C-alpha cells in the first residue's frame, strides 16, 4: 500500500565492528508503534552498541537501521526522539536547571510544565552540578531531558541499573505513564529479566552481539505456541546465555 505507515524501527542484518571485534552481528528486528521493546542481555552483549546504532550515535559497518522512516540520522528525527544513555555524557559543569534550559532552546515542542512535573515527581535536585549527581540523580535528569518534549520514540539504555528498589519503581512508573500516552514507542535495555518481563511487549535477547531470541514477552522464542512453563523468559534467558559461555 502506497504511503502505508512503517514501523518506527526497522533493523535489517545490522553489523557493527570495532577493529577486529564484532560488537553487533547480523541483527534483524522491527519495533511496532506504541509498543515496548525490551532488549535483554548480559554485560558486554552489545546492547549499548545496538542502542547507539538506533539513535544514530554510531554508524553501521553493514546492514541498515531505519528509525522513524529515515535511514540516516537528521536533526529533524532527533527532535522526535528521547534518549537515555548509560554513560555520562552531559557536561559536568552545568547545573540540572541549565541542562533543562538548554534542551528547551533546542526542542521546539519542549513542554516546560511537563519537565517541571517530572523533575518534582522524581525529586530531582536541579541546583546541583551534573558532575556532583549520584547515578540515581543522573538517570532522573536524563529522563527529564528525554521526555520533556513528549517524543514519539524513547530509547533507554539500562535506565534502572544502579538504582535502589524505590528508584527503580519510580523510573518504571514514569515510563508507564509515557507508554499510556498515545503513540509513544519505547525501546529499553536491561540485564534484569524481571524489568523486561514487566515492561516489554516484545523481547529480544542479545548475547555475543547476536540476537538469540526475539518474540512476544510470553513467547520469547517466537515459537507461536507458548507452552506453559516452556516459554518463561527467565528460563529462555538462562538457556541462551549459558549455551554461549559453555
Amino acid at each position, binding site marked *: 500500500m502506497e504511503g502505508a505507515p512503517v514501523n518506527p524501527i526497522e533493523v535489517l542484518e545490522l553489523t557493527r565492528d570495532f577493529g577486529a571485534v564484532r560488537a553487533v552481528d547480523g541483527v534483524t528486528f522491527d519495533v511496532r508503534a506504541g509498543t*515496548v521493546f525490551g532488549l535483554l542481555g548480559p554485560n558486554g552483549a552489545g546492547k549499548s552498541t545496538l542502542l547507539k546504532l538506533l539513535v544514530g550515535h554510531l554508524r553501521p559497518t553493514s546492514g541498515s537501521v531505519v528509525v522513524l522512516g529515515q535511514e540516516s540520522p537528521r536533526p529533524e528525527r532527533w527532535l522526535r526522539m528521547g534518549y537515555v544513555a548509560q554513560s555520562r555524557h552531559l557536561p559536568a559543569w552545568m547545573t540540572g536547571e541549565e541542562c533543562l534550559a538548554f534542551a528547551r532552546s533546542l526542542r521546539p515542542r519542549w513542554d516546560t510544565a511537563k519537565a517541571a512535573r517530572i523533575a518534582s515527581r522524581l525529586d530531582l535536585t536541579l541546583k546541583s552540578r551534573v558532575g556532583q549527581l549520584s547515578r540515581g540523580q543522573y538517570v532522573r535528569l536524563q529522563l527529564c531531558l528525554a521526555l520533556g518534549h513528549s517524543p514519539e520514540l524513547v530509547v533507554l539504555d539500562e535506565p534502572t541499573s544502579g538504582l535502589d528498589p524505590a528508584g527503580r519503581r519510580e523510573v518504571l512508573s514514569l515510563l508507564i505513564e509515557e507508554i499510556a500516552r498515545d503513540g509513544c514507542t519505547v525501546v529499553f535495555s536491561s540485564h534484569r529479566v524481571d524489568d523486561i518481563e514487566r515492561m516489554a511487549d516484545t523481547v529480544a535477547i542479545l548475547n555475543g552481539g547476536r540476537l538469540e531470541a526475539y518474540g512476544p514477552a510470553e513467547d520469547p522464542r517466537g515459537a507461536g505456541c507458548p507452552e506453559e512453563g516452556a516459554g518463561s523468559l527467565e528460563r529462555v534467558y538462562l538457556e541462551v546465555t549459558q549455551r554461549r559461555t559453555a
Partner: protein
Amino acid sequence: MILEINSSSSTPIYLQIVEQIHRRIARGALTAEDPLPSVRQLALELTINPNTVARAYLELEFQGVIYKRQAQGTYVSPGAGEASRVERDRMVAALFARAISEAASFGMTPEEIDGVYQKQWRAHR
C-alpha cells in the same frame, strides 16, 4: 484493587491478571457492575506495561466477564459470576486431572487417591 504479579511464575503476566480477576468474581469479592481500575491506574499499581493490562482486559471482555461503558470505564458484566464459575471449574478440573495422572503413574487406586484427597481437605480446613 490489590492484585499480585509473580514475575518468577511461568504464567504470562496478562494471564495472571485474568486469573486473579476470575478468582475475585468467583468468590464474590467482585460482583456485577463493580468498576475496575483504569488501564493506566492498574499498570502503575502493579508497575507493569499498560499494554499488558489492556490485553488482560480485552481477554476478559472477550470472555464476557467485563464490559466497557463508553468513556466511563470498565465494569464487571451482569453474567460474570456464571462465566467465572465456568472458568473456575475448568481450572480446578485441570489441576485434579494432573494430580490424578501423577497418582496413577505411581499405581494408586481410586480409593487410595480419595483417601489422600480426604486427608488433604481436612488439613486445609
